C-alpha cells in the first residue's frame, strides 16, 4: 500500500513539474513571439484626431498570442518603420534617427515590456476579433495572423516628445 501511495505521489509530482515547465516554456515562447518584432503593417484608414487604423500581420505559434503582439507591433511600426501602402498616404516613422532603438534601448525595453506604456496608445479593433481570411498557417508550427488595431499617433508622438525620445518641430528652438 505504502509503495502504491509513493508511486502515485511520484507520478503526481512528475506531472505537476512537467505541467509547470510546459507553462513556463509556453509563456517564454509567447513572450518571444510578441517581442521579436517580426510583422507587416498596412494602414486601413485615418481618423480626425491623429488616430490611424492599422492592420498588423504578426507571426506566432499560437493565433491567440498574435493579438497582444499586434498591438505592440503596431506601435513599434509607427515609431520605427512608418506606414506605407494600404488606404492611407505613406507616413514617415516618428523616429528620424535609424539608430534610435539602440540608442534608447533602456527606454524602449520598458516601453514595450508586458503591460508597458505602449498599450496606452493602442486598442484592438472589434475586441481583437480576427477576420476569417486573416489567419494563415505558413508552416507546421507558425501562423501569420492579421489583427486590426487603432493607434493614437498624436498622443504617442506627444508622449515621446515629452520624454525627449524624439524631437518635436518646435523643440529645436
Amino acid at each position: 500500500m505504502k509503495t502504491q501511495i509513493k508511486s502515485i505521489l511520484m507520478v503526481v509530482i512528475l506531472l505537476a513539474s512537467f505541467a509547470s515547465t510546459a507553462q513556463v516554456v509556453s509563456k517564454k515562447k509567447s513572450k518571444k513571439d510578441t517581442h521579436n518584432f517580426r510583422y507587416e503593417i498596412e494602414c486601413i484608414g485615418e481618423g480626425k484626431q491623429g488616430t490611424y487604423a492599422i492592420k498588423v500581420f504578426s507571426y506566432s505559434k499560437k493565433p491567440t498570442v498574435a493579438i497582444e503582439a499586434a498591438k505592440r507591433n503596431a506601435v513599434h511600426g509607427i515609431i520605427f518603420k512608418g506606414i506605407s501602402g494600404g488606404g492611407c498616404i505613406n507616413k514617415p516613422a516618428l523616429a528620424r534617427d535609424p539608430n534610435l532603438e539602440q540608442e534608447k534601448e533602456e527606454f524602449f525595453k520598458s516601453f514595450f515590456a508586458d503591460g508597458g506604456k505602449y498599450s496606452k496608445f493602442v486598442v484592438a479593433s472589434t475586441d481583437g476579433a480576427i477576420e476569417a481570411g486573416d489567419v494563415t498557417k505558413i508552416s507546421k508550427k507558425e501562423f501569420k495572423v492579421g489583427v486590426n488595431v487603432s493607434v493614437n499617433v498624436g498622443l504617442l508622438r506627444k508622449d515621446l516628445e515629452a520624454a525627449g525620445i524624439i524631437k518635436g518641430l518646435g523643440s529645436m528652438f
Partner: protein
Amino acid sequence: MKKITLAIFIALFTFASFAQPKAKKPTIMIVPSDVWCNQNGFMQEFNNQGTVVKVPDYKKAMQSDPTLIQVIAQINGMMAERGFPLKNLESALKTLEAEAADDNMRSSSTTGGGVSSSPTDKLKQVAKADIWMQITYNVNKKGPKSSIQFTLQGLDAYTDKQVATATGNGEPSSGSTPELMQEAVLAHLDNFNSTLMTYFEDMFVNGREVVCRIKVWDDWGENLETEEYGDDELGILIEGWMSELTVNEVFNLTTSTENQMFFEQVRIPMWVIDAKGKEKAYDVRALGKDLRKKLKTVGVEAKAENDGLGKVTLWIGHK
C-alpha cells in the same frame, strides 16, 4: 543650512552658464497663394513705372472669404497641435494697421514731435514671416459630395527655396470645405512636417542659410574695387571676412561688381561664443554687425539693415 543654499546656488549658476541658449526660432505664416488670390479675385493692381503689377490683396481675401479664414484656422490648429504655433495672417494685418494708426496719432508730450518714419520703414510695414506656407485649394463638386485638391508649399522667405511641400486630393465627402481641408491636409501634414524637420535639422548641422547684399552709397566716391584698404580690393577683403564668419566657409558670391555684391547660400552658425566666453544665439543681424566691425577696422563706415532672420543688407561709405 547656509552651505546647502550656497551649494544649490552654485549648482544653478553653473547649470545656467553651461545651458545652451535657444536658437532664433523662424516664424511661419499661412497665406493664400497668388494663384488662389488671382482665381478668386483678390488681387491689387498698381502701376510700377508703366508696368501694371498684380499683387495679392490678403486683407480683402480675409475680409471677404470666410472659408479661407476657416481653412487657415484649421491648419494653424493642426500645426499648434504638433508644437509649432504659426503666426496668424489676419492678426498680423490688424496689428500692422493698429501700429500705423498709433504712429500717426502719437506725439511727444515734451516737444510735440511725431514718430520718425522713413519711406523705407513704410515699405517694410507688411506682414512678415521667415517661412511662408502657401496654400492653394480647389473644391470640386460632384452631386451632393465635394472633394478638395490642395497644395501646401513651405517657402523660405529669403532664399526662395521650397523647404516643405504637401499636395493631394481629399476623399469625396458631404462635409464643409474646412472639414474637407482638415481631412485632406491631416493625411499629408506628417510628411510636410517631416520635410520641414529635415530643413531645421540641416540648419543646426550646417548653419542657417541666409542672403547678404553689399551695396555702395553713390556719394561715397569709392567702390568695391578700391585697393586702398589692404592688400587687395575691398570686395576681395569682404569675401575673405565672409569666409571667416560662415560655417565651413560655405557661401556663394553670385553677383560681384564694383558697386554691389550678392552672397547667397550663406551658412551662418546658430550660436557663437561671445567676448565673455558665453554661448549666444547668432543671426543675420549679428552677421551684419560683424561685417560692419570688420569694415571699420580698415576705416570704412557702413550701415547694416536686416530683414527677419534671413537677409541682411550693408550700404558702404557712411551710415
